């Protein structure tokens, strides 16, 4: 039986991660982005020369690219960027056990429930606080099998060849303005390598926390999944609510080699003063499968389109996207799939809910290059509007250059069904509660795919009890 909860009780509009941890960072770059800041970041990390050159080159590209005029409203962004700190170093070294992490930072992650989740259900955990990873640990059994799960800085230090072979090859500096920015000032993020045929049966998790006001976080993640391997990576993000805007721009590069399988789950729950502009891309080789599960609940504006480049024969890409846009939020999300090789298949499913003055936009690209014969793809978008002030948009680009391909796109938009509502209220269920039930039913197909039972920051979603509550 459903409990007596109203749409308000679903908690979608309530933010439970609004707490600030006191404490002084050991270093904080001055406000704004400059060559000096880039050099400071590089010096703090003790990087090789080539990386500093790479950063400086990226800074030039960033400065030369115009601010995007599509997607969300970025007209205030330049002013915001002048006021934020691009690099905040919270402590001097990273811990490999929680005891090594300073008490106040450890308290933060205790409140978020991360150490508990690690003990129970995770293969490894990484935690980023401000600009640096403060904790990174992998269970011994996986370490022995050759799995690498490190901070990106340690990846560069300890595995320079593997790092350099792949770094920035999937998302080059020029890809877009914010990828260029990230390339200039990246700090933190994970370096992951799953060796051939190793199958992780529990997920790896990275947790991103922004604590300080007027802060920019730029994590950079590189994941290499070798032939026949199988793994699942989860990232979660939260921040306290401030009256000023903060900024987050990540770059996530993934290589999924022959016959490997990889799933990347994001539960983005930034506070509503956060700009979240992220580039995520996977190169998917022969017979391999890449799955993106992308949940966007928080932030002021998110622009994020996880993508799969299907470059090997028979590669498969899947994107499941769910967005919730409440008052003052714009979720401009979706996905991109590029079919390059023959017999590649893909599917994109997107569900969004707009409430109050919220706006949810689906933006996607489906491209089939000439030569990607027998490519198959299907895109489905559903949008639910709760109020007459809510807004939803769908912008799917479909570009087909191959006649031996089959692709389809479908989108539908609806108000909460009056018939459904009438049915439920005629059974004595109050209207608010009935609406909550319908929303849960709407999200259910995606909720099923979420790792509800172990990702602790999904508490809010768990509270929704989205599954099986009707009938």
């Amino acid at each position, binding site marked *: 039986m459903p409990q007596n909860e109203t749409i308000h009780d679903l908690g979608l509009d309530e933010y439970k991660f609004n707490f600030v941890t006191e404490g002084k960072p050991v270093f904080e770059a001055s406000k704004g982005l400059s060559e000096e800041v880039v050099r400071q970041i590089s010096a703090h990390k003790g990087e090789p020369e080539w990386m500093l050159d790479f950063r400086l080159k990226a800074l030039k590209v960033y400065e030369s690219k115009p601010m995007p005029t599509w997607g969300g409203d970025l007209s205030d962004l330049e002013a915001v960027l002048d006021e934020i700190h691009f690099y905040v170093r919270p402590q001097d070294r990273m811990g490999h056990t929680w005891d090594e992490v300073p008490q106040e930072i450890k308290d933060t992650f205790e409140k978020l429930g991360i150490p508990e989740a690690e003990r129970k259900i995770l293969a490894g955990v990484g935690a980023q606080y401000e600009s640096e990873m403060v904790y990174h640990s992998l269970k011994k059994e996986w370490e022995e099998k050759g799995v690498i799960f490190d901070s990106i800085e340690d990846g560069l230090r300890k595995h320079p060849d593997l790092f350099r072979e792949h770094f920035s090859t999937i998302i080059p500096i020029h890809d877009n303005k914010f990828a260029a920015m990230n390339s200039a000032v990246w700090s933190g993020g994970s370096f992951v390598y799953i060796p051939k045929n190793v199958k992780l049966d529990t997920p790896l998790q990275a947790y991103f926390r922004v604590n300080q006001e007027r802060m920019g976080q730029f994590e950079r993640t590189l994941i290499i999944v070798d032939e026949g391997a199988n793994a699942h990576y989860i990232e979660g993000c939260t921040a306290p609510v401030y009256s000023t805007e903060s900024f987050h721009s990540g770059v996530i590069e993934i290589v999924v080699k022959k016959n490997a399988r990889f799933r990347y789950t994001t539960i983005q729950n930034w506070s509503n003063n956060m700009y979240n502009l992220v580039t995520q891309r996977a190169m998917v080789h022969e017979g391999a499968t890449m799955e993106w599960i992308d949940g966007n609940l928080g932030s002021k504006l998110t622009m994020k389109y996880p993508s799969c480049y299907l470059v090997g024969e028979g590669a498969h890409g899947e994107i499941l996207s769910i967005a919730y846009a409440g008052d003052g939020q714009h979720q401009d999300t979706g996905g991109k799939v590029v079919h390059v090789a023959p017999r590649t298949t893909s599917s994109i499913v997107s569900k969004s809910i707009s409430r109050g003055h919220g706006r949810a936009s689906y933006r996607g690209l489906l491209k089939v290059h000439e030569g990607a014969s027998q490519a198959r793809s299907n895109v489905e978008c559903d*949008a639910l*509007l709760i109020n007459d002030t809510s807004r939803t948009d769908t912008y*799917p680009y479909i570009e*087909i250059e191959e006649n031996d391909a089959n*692709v389809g796109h479908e*989108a*539908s*938009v*609806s*108000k909460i069904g009056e018939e459904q509502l009438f049915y439920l209220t005629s059974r004595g269920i109050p209207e608010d509660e009935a609406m909550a039930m319908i929303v849960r039913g709407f999200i259910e197909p995606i909720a099923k795919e979420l790792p509800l039972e172990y990702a602790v920051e999904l508490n809010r979603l768990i509270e929704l009890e989205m599954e099986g509550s009707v009938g």
Partner: protein
Amino acid sequence: MTTMTVTEGVTDVFNAAAVERLGAAEPEWLRERRTHAWEVYERTPMPTTRSEEWRYTDLRRKLDLGALRCCTTPPARDEFTGWPLPLRKAMAQDREASGHLVIIDGRVVHADVADELAAKGVVLMSLHEAVEKHEALVKEYLATEAVPAEEGKFAALNAALWNDGIFLDVPRGVHLDQPVRVTRWYSESGVAYFSRTLIVAETASQVSFVDEVLSDDFTAQTLTSSAVEVFALDGAKVQYVAVQRLGRGGFYQSVQRTLAQRDATLDTLNVALGGTTTRVDLNARLLGPGSNSDMLGLYFGDEDQHFDFNTSQDHVAPNAGSDLLYKGALDGHSRAAFRGIIRVHKGAQRTDAYQKIRNILLSPHARADSLPNLEIEADDVKCSHGATVGQLDAEAKFYLMSRGMNRIQAERLVVLGFLGEVLSKLPLGGVSEKVTRVIQEKLKHHV
């Protein structure tokens, strides 16, 4: 030709002096409208593929405005037997009509309306004539609310340089049982033709309008630019059909806007078969509660034909409906782009709006791009869109082949069936048969 003339679109032939010459003998309000349009044209940049609406058509490669001249062919006479054979054949294939209008090389050479309709006040004539005889109506509706110069670079160019056009007015309550048929013939290569169509269907009137454009292959690129404005006032019922059968070398450019008032029905069908480049901008505005627009499209491309449809369904009023279905088959190196948007404006509650685009690719070198968009700002709506790109229905083909057809015969028949769905939705005397025949003719080249 210098780079400047390309980017600005001001050439030796198309310039402020030409606008002045055209307006010389016209009433002052019209002259001012032309001058205003020319100012808008000059300050509007030539669209590039960086703009979303022109993402799939690169005008720098597709159109050489600087090479186009004005038509110098002397006006044809109003004499059926003297008209070009293909034009006469096309007219002979038409069935009953409420009226005819013939345009040769951009000039209206003939217009007739059935006597009893003329008696009821139905007006079908050249736009020039209408400026004199029905000035108030033309002044109210021409390039104002529907396709003003501000609409875009081509709309501005057309509003400044149109040299003839069509005016149709159907008075209150008058029903035309047979279609009004317009047939156009273009003979001169390397020129630009600018025409406008203004249709006013007054309260509770009913009319179907079929506009067929024909030419032989051109020896040099030839632009036919048209602006179409259709007004359906309260409770009016209008069907607008455009059939494009230009020869190769033709650049067919058409900006169309339909405005449907309370309880009006305003359906459109765009058929594009000929030309080298086709660009249609169609905007359906649902301005009155209870109004409805069905928007149909059909195209069949081969060789290097390029089609670009840019449609929008603007739901301004509540309780209105729109339903779009565009289908295309692409052979050879042909390419089709479809960009469509459903906009549900604030307050347009209980909107039903649909959009469906289906392409089949018959050759490995054909290409189809679809961009169906939704922008919804009301919550009590039913909207959906779908787009598919695929091949011929393999099962249907197999069925036909198992009945003794060879592969090519079967494929041709399946293509006809695929496109035929669109024609069956708007049964207008003769249109379906005529279009089917042209497709059959083109399919002969499909191997």
